[in-house]
């Protein structure tokens, strides 16, 4: 009887999977995506820039320019709330993971900060080719929490639920870095985790891809000034892809993973 009840439950619903990247089954209109600032409406009053909790809004008085560093943004909607002229607005756009951190930023990072454009792109392309060649269409992932609030980890977990089901792409999570092709790193590489992160990185066989998930891993997010936190994991390990968000929703992480594998063009 028990088994009959189970079988009945299993066949009760038609397929639950939402089929991302196809968006027809997603309610994208409900998503909170990245904020944008309409330069033509903005009066440069500076209210949003001074109140932004993670100081992600860059207002340059000299060039009269304003913009957002998306790697630092925590998507809290405060800019939209305080903007008198409705220039700052939240959008539904959640697919904006980038291979180069400077492409997420309004104020580019200096050259010597470990983010060098050419080598990373090249390295990344080479790795992709290698991975495709050696692994065909499957990918093994090891997740490392290097000091997150656990939001990103739950969203990574969420990729395994029946609605997202990342295994349909041939992507699996593995228990050991020694079995992994990709490290999904969350958190700011805090003091106590730096050693563990480096050891995990070194234990992962080449070719490998490192993906920074969430504002903390990309830039340190709201925590980057803490004495035990760090301004992003790229000061410790080379990063191939940055997925901004606080936390990024499972589809945004999937977008990033598929992008680094070149299954989505962008």
């Amino acid at each position, binding site marked *: 009887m028990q088994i009959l009840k189970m079988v009945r439950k299993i066949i009760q619903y038609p397929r639950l999977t939402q089929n991302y990247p196809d968006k027809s089954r997603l309610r994208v209109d*409900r*998503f*909170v995506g990245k904020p944008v600032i309409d330069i033509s409406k903005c009066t440069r009053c500076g209210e949003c820039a001074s109140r932004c*909790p993670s100081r992600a809004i860059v207002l340059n008085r000299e060039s009269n320019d304003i913009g957002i560093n998306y790697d630092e943004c925590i998507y809290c909607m405060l800019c939209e709330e305080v903007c008198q002229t409705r220039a700052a607005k939240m959008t539904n756009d959640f697919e904006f993971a980038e291979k180069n951190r400077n492409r997420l930023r309004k104020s580019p990072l200096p050259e010597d900060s470990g983010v060098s454009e050419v080598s990373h792109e090249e390295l990344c392309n080479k790795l992709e080719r290698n991975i495709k060649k050696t692994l065909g269409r499957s990918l093994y992932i090891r997740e*490392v929490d290097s000091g997150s609030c656990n939001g*990103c980890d739950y969203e990574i*977990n969420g990729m395994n639920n029946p609605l997202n089901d990342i295994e349909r792409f041939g992507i699996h999570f593995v228990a050991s870095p020694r079995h992994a092709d990709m490290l999904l790193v969350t958190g700011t590489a805090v*003091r106590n985790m730096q050693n563990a992160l480096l050891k995990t990185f070194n234990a992962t066989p080449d070719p490998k891809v490192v993906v920074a998930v969430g504002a903390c891993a990309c830039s340190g997010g709201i925590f980057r000034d803490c004495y035990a936190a760090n301004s992003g994991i790229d000061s410790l390990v080379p990063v191939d892809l940055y997925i901004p968000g*606080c936390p990024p929703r499972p589809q945004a992480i999937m977008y990033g993973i598929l992008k680094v594998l070149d299954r989505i063009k962008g």
Partner: protein
Amino acid sequence: MRALNKKLVELFPKDIYNSIFNGSNELYLEVNSREILKICTYVDTELGCPLVSMFANDERQLHHKFAVYYVFADKNRSGLLTLKTMVSEEEMTIQSICNEIPAAALYEREIKDLFGIIPKGHPALKELIFHGNWPEGKYPLRKDFDTRKKVHMINKKKEFVEVKGEGVYEIPVGPVHAGIIEPGHFRFSVAGEPILHLEAQLHYVHKGIEKMCEGESIEKCLYISERISGDESFTNSLAYCQAVEKIVGVNVPTRAKYIRVVFAELERLTSHLGDLGGICLDVAYGFGAFQFRAMRAWAYLIADELCGMRFLRSVNRLGGVRKDFIVGKEKSLIEQLNKIRTELKDTAGILKAHSLFIDRVENTGVLSAGIAADLNAVGPPGRASGRHYDVRKSYPYEAYTDLDFDISEHNNGDVNCRVNVKIEECFESIDLIINAIEAMPEGKVREKTDSVEPHRFAFGITEAPRGENIHWVMTGEDNTVFRYKIRTPSFCNWPALCHAVKGNIVPDFPLINKSFNLSYAGNDL
């Protein structure tokens, strides 16, 4: 609280210097630091008020001394009794109370690491926060420590409790685990299969949140509080809001109170469904795991519909909520919740009748009532071990006073009881959300908050999905935070977990761990 004050002052006339009443339910007594053990023991054992938080504060700017606060919960009177002692810079020691009140052991180690105040008489003063990489003589929570300055790393040997004997061996696990979870190091001392001793070395994700909040604006700290522990975003920000709202003296509109209940219960539902799925996965019961995961995903769809944020961030604002999230969505919400309830009922029925599942969870990971009381175990693990305590009943906040609900009661303290508590709480949460939606009055959802006066303080106390959650906020000059002490339920329950695994086999550890479902980030801060 006045009666309690009178009683204590009569008993310790010489040792209580000063009483301060703060709001309706907070009593602060400044006491003689030499007699702290005597008074704490009396409050804990004779009055039956457990120690729920303990923290230090660098108040040298105010009166040239450090202060140590001991917070006791007077659950029958819905009050919080705080004993405060002063520590001068020359002294820098306090008398340890952890031999009498075991729950104090971790707090005292934390105070030692962060302030350099030594608890005299503490039996095991191992470094708690930093794992041998922090130089001596630097104390991050003192006011003269600059949070933006990075401190150099040193390399000291880490020490663990050693269990000796024939055939005893150690299994070190972590900090990076096999599953998609947070980091922590577990050292099992094992003889054959059963675990003799477990030492959990946590604080791997220690960022320095409490220090970071100091000197930041009241508004910014709200966003930090949402990021203490991801899946408890709402309840943490609610505790922070409560504390600040108490200090400002603002009355939250009734509709906002109901909206807060809806979100708090939605967070609990989501969290518990995730735990139940994890427990099923850890006993290799795939059917159950996927059922609960699907239900959890549905709960996230509700969150998306309400506020667009799956972790319910940017919902709370000081003085209410950001906007009216519920209006116009009532019908769809109730429909979706009923769907989850039906599915949960069916799945729970199958689960409880499944002998393989029951075989794994029954009598596994028993947390005895005595240990639960000594360590002040809270939340579902506490309630599964006979501690029938829920903040929503004992310290009613928001609209919980007007809503009818029950607290689940279980006494065996094993994984099975924790599963049952969580299933019952899921049903209770669904009912609470629906009742709150139906009882919700019309009206505005946010009251304007003015600037705050400096050096005022208050507690915020909420029932997080994992249990009692206590935040203490002291304001500084110019609308800033002077001190923000965060005590999440995980901090109380981690030591309880280490006791619950004793005598169990190592392969059952993930299962027991999942049934407690503790937050590493909320513990490590």
